[in-house]
């Protein structure tokens, strides 16, 4: 028996997808608000130290964003490389979770970048503030979760091919 393709499901499934999206965006809105309202007292560092910190931040941010977009591309390739193979919803969960976490990782990457820009424009003088550190940490750990679920999906997919 072949599974029903996900794209041809009832409108109720599409409705649940949009409801989940709205809830997710609402939660992220609140999280961003919380991060951006964290109090910070700082003693600005000297310019060379700040330049080094920004360089290190940029390198890691670029690397994580490249890994995230690469992971999404690999996921898309895996899902479309076998057009005749339809996945059941329960087989798709790791792929869905992986895509959600990688999406969140990219979002947190953007927020931390926006806040680094804020720190530089307002001469806060250090990156050691919750405004930058919280989204930066979330950026890394959500990507890690995305990689974990992607690996789970790939293992399941390989098992199916055998």
């Amino acid at each position, binding site marked *: 028996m072949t599974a029903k393709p996900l794209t041809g499901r009832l409108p109720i499934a599409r409705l649940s997808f949009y409801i989940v*999206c709205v809830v997710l965006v609402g939660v992220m809105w609140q999280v961003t608000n919380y991060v951006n309202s964290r109090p910070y007292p700082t*003693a600005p560092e000297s310019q060379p130290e700040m330049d080094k910190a920004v360089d290190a931040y940029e390198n890691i941010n670029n690397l994580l964003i490249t890994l995230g977009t690469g992971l999404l591309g690999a996921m898309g390739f895996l899902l479309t490389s076998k057009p005749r193979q339809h996945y059941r919803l329960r087989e798709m969960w790791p792929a869905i979770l992986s895509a959600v976490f990688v999406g969140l990782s990219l979002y947190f990457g953007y927020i931390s970048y926006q806040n680094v820009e804020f720190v530089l424009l*307002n001469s806060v003088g250090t990156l050691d503030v919750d405004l930058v550190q919280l989204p930066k940490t979330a950026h890394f750990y959500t990507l890690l979760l995305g990689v974990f679920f992607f690996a789970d999906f790939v293992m399941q997919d390989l098992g199916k091919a055998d």
Partner: protein
Amino acid sequence: MKRTNMKARRLLPVLKLALGCLFLFPALLQSQMPQRPGRLTVDSTPPGAAVTIDSQPMSRPTPFTFVLSPGQHSVSVSGKDQAGREMRCTASLNIVAGSAKAVHCTAKGWDPPVK
């Protein structure tokens, strides 16, 4: 089942619109951007006293200009005066976004007094 599907079909455009608004508006809202910080210059006589802000010891002694997020902050300066007596000043300061404030600690307390 058919009625539920019909309702779902009618709700879809509304949800899509709500999602679009949720995606676009946060970027325009002030609450989604950090507020501009304020500056607080902490000085003391004699200089070199330790500064603690929000129970967090600062890496720089007085005199120094610290950068603080807007809102209420507790500031404490401790050290020894020229006669070797303990000097301690504590205050709760309201920092306004984009503003600059200065406080000066002596053995007799804040000079001028901090409100």
